[in-house]
């Protein structure tokens, strides 16, 4: 499903497909990193150490720039319990304990392509988080379906919200800056030196800012939020979608890239960049 319509392969389309391949590669790389780091987590590891492990793993594979630096949340921090200010997102010295849920979230830039992924798991069995993860499948389907229907982003956001309430969960992506469930990602120019601002790569922020400016003029926004500025149909481009469920101190999310195009064919108008990801495989196994 990752390929666009077969048929005439214009140069533009071929370029688009190459581009997608680049994004897909870096997304795979990031998920590999998440699985590798998750496998190394032991009781007593702190969030800072887990974040550092992700950074080192990716740096070792050529990542030099970031959309944002890796995050790691353990225990009830996976549900952002008591988060008031954005600084609380940054890794702390919270230690992992047996049975604790964790979330790894990283956004590396590799060869100019950006990925932004979220990986949920637990140290040892955690039936509650398993349930949350299983219930995320309905959200993945809902989002894709409604994007294909060209509903406005705000409406889709509200429908996701309603589904969460029906499932009995709290919407935790509301805690993200601007309460976003998704944001646009794009290619980033590779620079020898890219400083970071509050953990976010300046190059990526620049891209986001110019999108925001352009979108402001044309009536759309690169941030997919519950607010009026998201009251527009899906804008073609790559969206890193991150529904985040919370339930009484346990959180779970996935994050992956949704490709939106201006194609008239619904199948090609929106699709997930990659359907071979840990959480998708997991749902398939459970069936």
């Amino acid at each position, binding site marked *: 499903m990752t390929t666009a319509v077969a048929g005439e392969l214009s140069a533009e389309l071929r370029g688009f497909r190459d581009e997608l391949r680049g994004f897909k590669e870096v997304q795979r790389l990031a998920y590999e990193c998440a699985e590798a780091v998750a496998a190394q987590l032991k009781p007593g590891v702190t969030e800072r150490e887990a974040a550092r492990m992700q950074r080192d793993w990716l740096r070792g594979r050529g990542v030099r720039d970031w959309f944002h630096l890796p995050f790691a949340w353990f225990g009830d921090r996976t549900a952002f319990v008591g988060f008031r200010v954005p600084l609380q997102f940054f890794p702390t010295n919270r230690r992992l304990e047996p049975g604790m849920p964790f979330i790894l979230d990283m956004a590396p830039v590799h060869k100019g392509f950006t990925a932004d992924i979220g990986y949920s798991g637990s140290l040892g069995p955690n*039936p*509650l988080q398993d*349930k949350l993860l299983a219930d995320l499948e309905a959200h993945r389907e809902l989002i894709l379906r409604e994007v294909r229907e060209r509903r406005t982003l705000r409406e889709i956001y509200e429908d996701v919200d309603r589904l969460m*309430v*029906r*499932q*009995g969960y709290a919407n935790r992506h509301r805690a993200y800056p601007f309460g976003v469930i998704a944001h646009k990602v794009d290619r980033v120019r590779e620079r020898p030196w890219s400083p970071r601002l509050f953990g976010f790569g300046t190059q990526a922020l620049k891209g986001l800012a110019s999108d925001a400016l352009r979108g402001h003029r044309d009536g759309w926004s690169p941030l997919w939020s519950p607010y009026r500025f998201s009251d527009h149909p899906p804008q073609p481009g790559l969206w890193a979608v991150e529904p985040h469920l919370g*339930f*009484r101190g346990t959180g779970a999310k996935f994050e992956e890239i949704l490709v939106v195009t201006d194609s008239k064919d619904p199948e090609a108008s929106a699709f997930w960049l990659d359907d071979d990801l840990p959480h998708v495989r997991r749902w398939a196994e459970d069936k």
Partner: protein
Amino acid sequence: MSLEGARERWVRTGGIELCVAELGDDRQPTVVLVHGYPDSKEVWSEVAARLADRFHVVLYDVRGHGRSSAPQPLRGGFTLEKLTDDFLAVVDAVSPDRPVHLVGHDWGSVQSWEFVTVARTEGRIASFTSMSGPSLDHFGHWIKQRVRRPTPRRVGQLLGQGAKSWYVYMLHTPALPELAWRGPLGKRWPKMLERFEKVPAGDYPTASLPSDAAHGAWLYRDNVRPRLSRPRADAYAHAPVQLITPLGDAFLSERLYDDLEEWAPRLLRRTLPAKHWVPRTRPDQLAAWITEFVTANEGREAGLPAQGTAATGKYADRFGGQLVLVTGAGSGIGRATAFAFAEAGARVVAVDRDAGSAARTAEMSRLIGSPEAWAETVDVSDEQAMEKLAEKVATEYGVVDVLVNNAGIGLSGSFFDTTSEDWKKVLDVNLWGVIHGCRLFGKQMAERGQGGHIVNTASAAAYQPSKALPAYSTSKAAVLMLSECLRAELAGQGIGVSAICPGFVNTNITSTARFAGVDVAEEKRRQKNSARLYGLRNYPPEKVADAILRAVVRNQAVVPVTPEARGAHLMSRFTPKALRAIARLEPPL
């Protein structure tokens, strides 16, 4: 006496004969029940009958009590060392190969603490459930600590327990207690128990009471002074301990157990709102907790930590294993309440008219600590369906310990726009639903006679008038008054009733509310607008659920939740005119 079907045997030890009764299959785990003062083994009859189908239940009359013979001379015949000899003799007779599960109440618990903390019983006790009887050694250390560093709080605790121990001082006077017990006190004791301790009338206490009480005075005289003045320094429990604390105990302060983890590292705490004689007044709850604890600790090798059955929620000590029924549990406050009880380890019955959401609540409840949870699809306004539900719950799940009548619907619109159909609908759910719940489940609670609690979700609209909500407010005001009246009626039976009055809480009541006197499109618009406003207010239902659990624990009568509800509650008392002015405002929809 009602120890029916018990097999009796006599165990000789140290020159006396102990009367031992056994119930149930002796291949099952053995549970030994030790009675207190002034009691005999028959104090356990209700609990023993409930345990007998699962366990090998053993009861014995402590020396000098019931049909066991008394030592001669009495002085020096009741020391804890001798009581330990008795216990070991009984245990060797009834369960020579396997360790036993020990349960003690009052002095039975005091002596059991000795059994479970001395070395010679190691390996003979698999678990110990203690109620209303501290270890004298721990008590001694507790006093010493407080005397040594008398902060105001510690002095308060000392004086509090000192006052509660008045009867201990009396028992130390020579001859007088014996005279009283064999004379007028012994005669009046059953009535006193009934009146002050709410022990149900019947065949307890037994006829041997005067001599039990007279002999038992030596329990105090032989042990209290030596142990309190020179407590053992090594009184560590070598078995897992479940501590059941009745919160209304007139003789023992709950503060006595503050540092108990130090002495009993594998400790599980339980509390229940009852007076001292819990084996008579709360047999169902005790049997359930004993069963759970014994099962969890049965067959475990010594040294392994005690079971992981305990829920982690805030009030797990209070609600663990209790049966809680919540109506309207498919969403909003009801669902959050069900989850809060589930986290505290309660068994939850989630009732909602929507089958899917009720099932969802039950499923999630099981994942967060509820040992069992069920979903029931019932419309609370349907009397017959509610009757069926009550019957089913009673036969399949048991008598409800906490009932939360929460289901409700919203209705807004001026009085003249509200049709009689609208009125009927809102009263049917909001008021009749509560009436049915209280009538059916409250009756079961009252008939069981072992306490319980009813929570009715009213609203701040019960005392805050509004021209926009005449029908809704009327229904909620009725619920509030119903709760208050019922509270008065049930107070004597140990059943509490609380009315919860939330203000604007972010639930889906707004998107299902009916707006009278407007067309469908306008109704949709108003639903959406009110949902948005409630969303902006964003008071989470979880906080209301917390308030509900707290109200049950503290037995509060009326609990306004959210600042605006508390403010309106205050104003309704002190400046009702201002409230009336607010009532005239048009809501911004």
